[in-house]
């Protein structure tokens, strides 16, 4: 792995060092544009390594540097892990910030949508393993990702999965801190968030992973709600409604409202829905999709589950299905 260049030590002054750094990277083609950044593909000249450059538009945010940029910078600098996207370097130019990230051409969403690719249970296991390892690293550094979805799980050309997009991440809160419940893309949002909780924990990330797990098996989004209200209905229809009996104090959440009571699915119903799943698979996915966040498993518990130990063994990343580029 190449050593980090300008981030590895306080160096000399302004423009000189910027030039030294920026000249090491070439910005070649634009590949995407978001609300606060434009993404290019380029090359790190010293190593010929392909990289992605996220150019953050400054000046757009009236309060100075955009919060998403701050979060990405802050957390990617600290989280170094094989299953988390690597921040290689940062430099600023013309008052624009450039984040140099490793180049990851595909994401899990693309793979799921490409029906010509077949997923075997071992493949799914491999992706789940890598996702949980990356998330475990975040959580043991007390950082919540808050936006896990197949779109943000990128894949390297060697098949390694990496968690990306820390624009919504934040550190775990102290008891007196209130967090916003308007996080995570709706289909992957945990029920406590749907009910407006302000003191949530890493369990929201586990929920997202559970929904992604289901989606990997079904090849279609598991809980697609049309709007926030609908999301509640879709979620509870699939997994049963929360009651005081199965989720203490749920009615005390600010956004709680009485919805129809749906019964929780029986094991047989789940078996029917996830026809290729073994009993341990169902055990794991159920523990990740517990309505009560206190009952949900943690990353450690998930990694120690029987699912990963039983046969088939998780596929080696090199052998995972890949998207074949159509043409150069």
């Amino acid at each position, binding site marked *: 792995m190449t050593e980090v260049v300008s981030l590895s030590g306080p160096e000399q002054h302004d423009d000189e060092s910027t030039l030294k750094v920026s000249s090491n990277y070439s910005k070649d083609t634009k590949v995407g544009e978001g609300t606060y950044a434009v993404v290019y593909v380029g090359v790190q000249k010293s190593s010929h390594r392909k990289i992605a450059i996220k150019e953050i538009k400054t000046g757009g945010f009236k309060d100075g540097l955009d919060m998403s940029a701050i979060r990405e910078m802050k957390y990617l600098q600290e989280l170094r892990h094989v299953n988390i996207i690597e921040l290689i370097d940062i430099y600023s130019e013309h008052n624009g910030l450039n984040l140099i990230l490793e180049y990851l051409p595909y994401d899990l969403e693309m793979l799921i949508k490409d029906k010509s690719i077949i997923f075997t249970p071992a493949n799914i296991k491999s992706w789940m393993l890598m996702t949980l*390892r990356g998330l475990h690293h975040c959580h043991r550094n007390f950082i919540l990702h808050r936006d896990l979805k197949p779109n943000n799980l990128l894949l390297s050309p060697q098949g390694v999965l990496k968690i990306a997009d820390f624009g919504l991440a934040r550190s775990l809160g102290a008891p007196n801190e209130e967090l916003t419940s308007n996080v995570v893309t709706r289909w992957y949002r945990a029920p406590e968030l749907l009910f407006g909780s302000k003191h949530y924990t890493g369990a929201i990330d586990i929920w997202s992973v559970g929904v992604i797990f289901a989606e990997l098996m079904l090849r279609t989004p598991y809980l697609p709600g049309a709007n926030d209200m609908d999301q509640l209905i879709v979620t509870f229809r699939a997994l049963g409604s929360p009651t005081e009996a199965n989720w203490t104090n749920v009615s005390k959440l600010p956004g709680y409202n009485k919805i129809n009571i749906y019964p929780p699915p029986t094991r047989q119903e789940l078996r029917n829905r996830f026809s290729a799943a073994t009993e341990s698979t169902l055990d794991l996915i159920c523990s990740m999709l517990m309505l009560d966040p206190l009952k949900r498993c943690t990353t450690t518990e998930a990694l120690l589950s029987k699912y990963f130990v039983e046969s088939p063994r998780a596929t080696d990343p090199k052998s995972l299905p890949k998207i074949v580029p159509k043409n150069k």
Partner: protein
Amino acid sequence: MGPTKCPYPNCNKILRKNKFKKQIFDDLNIEKECDIRKKILEIYNKQESNFKNLNEYNKYLEEIETIIFNLSHDIDIEETTNLVKQYELMNKELINENNDKISKDYENFMKRQNLEKSFKQTRLKLQKEIEDEDAKLKKLKNLENLNNMYDEGITKNKNNNNNNNNKNVLNQMKESILKKTSARQKQLKELEQRQQERLSQLTSSFGGQQLDDINGKLQKPETPFTPFNGDRVLKLPYNEDNDYYDPIYFNLVEKNDEFRASGYNLKEFFKRSLSEAFIGLDCFICDEK
């Protein structure tokens, strides 16, 4: 009638009854080619695994096709037949070996099919039983509820004995069903496990079929699986289970039910703080830098 000479004027072949077979295809030419193909492939029975690379294998296949083409279109018959005879003589051993392999593979395949079939049947049976028992349990629960409601009505009239008996009976029935269900679930799990084991024992070089368990075995080297891959803090320098005390936070969290509902666990916060107290404690910068 016995073997006789062919009635055709020029052909001197001896015809025997058992050398005749029933015609399958309308087109005689196709019939002929099929026969020839069958005979040749019994001799040229090498498989892809016998070759170093794809190119060699393809060349081999082409050879076979040329032979079959020649024979079925009456081109260079003598030459080709000699070629074939020669090949047969030289490769007799290999041919027999390959034949054995092929028949074994086929055996394996059939075994596998049967295993899967029986597995599916047993599983279905178990699942159905579990489902039935779940339904029974539900009924019992309903009965119990009714009983409880009845109880509440009765306690007003102070006539408990009967209902206690009923309760006991119900509880017993519930317990026995629960036992059975959990036993069955266990059985199910064991069944699945056994199935996996059996399948992985059957090896098959069956035409490049990518089966997950086979893939698993072919991955070398075989190292034991560790979910964390060594990346885990094993020894905690503090005691996780102590009842820690903080007057301010306790009040905050206890008074507000929302915390419990959000999954917020004060213990987790304590764990975090404790971890932060030790993260970096033994990093002596003056020595390390």
